[in-house]
């Protein structure tokens, strides 16, 4: 094919294969971080367009795949920042775990675990669980149930692994505020995993909005 002849001149870059080689990969990553079909598809499209524009600058320092995933991660970061800024802060209601009030609220033992409300013994080897597809499925379900604004911060930090200082600057939040938001998410995720993965409570999709 004449197309592939011209591509040969540009080294390893072959855009005609991108959709086939990376489409599902990029879509899967984007979906797991954006929790939204059309946003994920848009991110994939923008990644391909940006890659086409930048393909002259690809000099094989990384593999084509790593390069492409890097571009996608930038797009995802932009989208999550935008989502955080555009979601009103009062949309973050009290989280389900907070409604359960696991801690004493008044009296001399205020702030201590209430009887039978503390974390349960999971009885699983965490390191083995990391290999477990069942665990990963529940982890994704629980991540998807976080409210949008908190999910944006949490995903930037824990999955995109953005620098905390940079997140504070980009989102205009204080470090203290960031740490509180991260802990709220961790609390909720921990409880969600405990309920569904450990105790087997059926998952309802009510929070998937």
């Amino acid at each position, binding site marked *: 094919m004449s197309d592939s002849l011209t591509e040969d001149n540009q080294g390893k870059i072959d855009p005609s294969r991108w959709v086939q080689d990376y489409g*599902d990969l990029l879509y899967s990553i984007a979906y797991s971080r954006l929790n939204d079909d059309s946003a994920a598809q848009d991110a994939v499209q923008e990644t391909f367009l940006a890659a*086409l524009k930048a393909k002259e600058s690809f000099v094989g320092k990384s593999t084509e795949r790593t390069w492409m995933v890097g571009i996608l991660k930038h797009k995802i970061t932009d989208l999550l920042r935008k989502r955080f800024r555009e979601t009103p802060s009062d949309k973050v209601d009290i989280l389900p775990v907070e409604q359960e009030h696991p*801690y004493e609220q008044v009296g001399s033992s205020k702030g201590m675990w209430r009887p039978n409300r503390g*974390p349960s013994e999971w009885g699983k080897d965490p390191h083995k669980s990391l290999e477990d597809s069942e*665990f990963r499925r529940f982890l*994704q379900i629980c991540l998807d149930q976080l409210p949008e604004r908190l999910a944006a911060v949490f995903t930037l930090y824990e999955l995109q692994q953005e620098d905390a200082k940079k997140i504070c600057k980009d989102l205009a939040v204080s470090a203290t505020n960031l*740490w509180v938001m991260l802990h709220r998410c961790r609390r909720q995720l921990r409880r969600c*995993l405990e309920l569904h993965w450990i105790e087997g409570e059926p998952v309802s999709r009510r929070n998937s909005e």
Partner: protein
Amino acid sequence: MVNPLKAPMMLMARMLPSCEEVGQMVSESLDRRLSLPERIQVKLHLAMCALCRRYASQLVFLHKALHRHAEDAEARKEPDRELPDSVRQHLQDLVNRESQA
């Protein structure tokens, strides 16, 4: 009768953080280096409180699991999701068109 230990014990209790506060500090220990007084408070509390020890180890596990989850998604050979055919075709057309331009 006045308990001579009451005052110092009240003072100690006030200095020691609650389970809820320790939970926050344990979480923050994943994000920043705690100050020396904070580290001491957390250590003392965890030494005495099995539930908080459990909570702490579950948060650490979760933190690691999330990093692993993200790295796996980026390295996966077989992606867990497939683009719908119509979107795939649209993207292919777009890339073909744009790479000619």
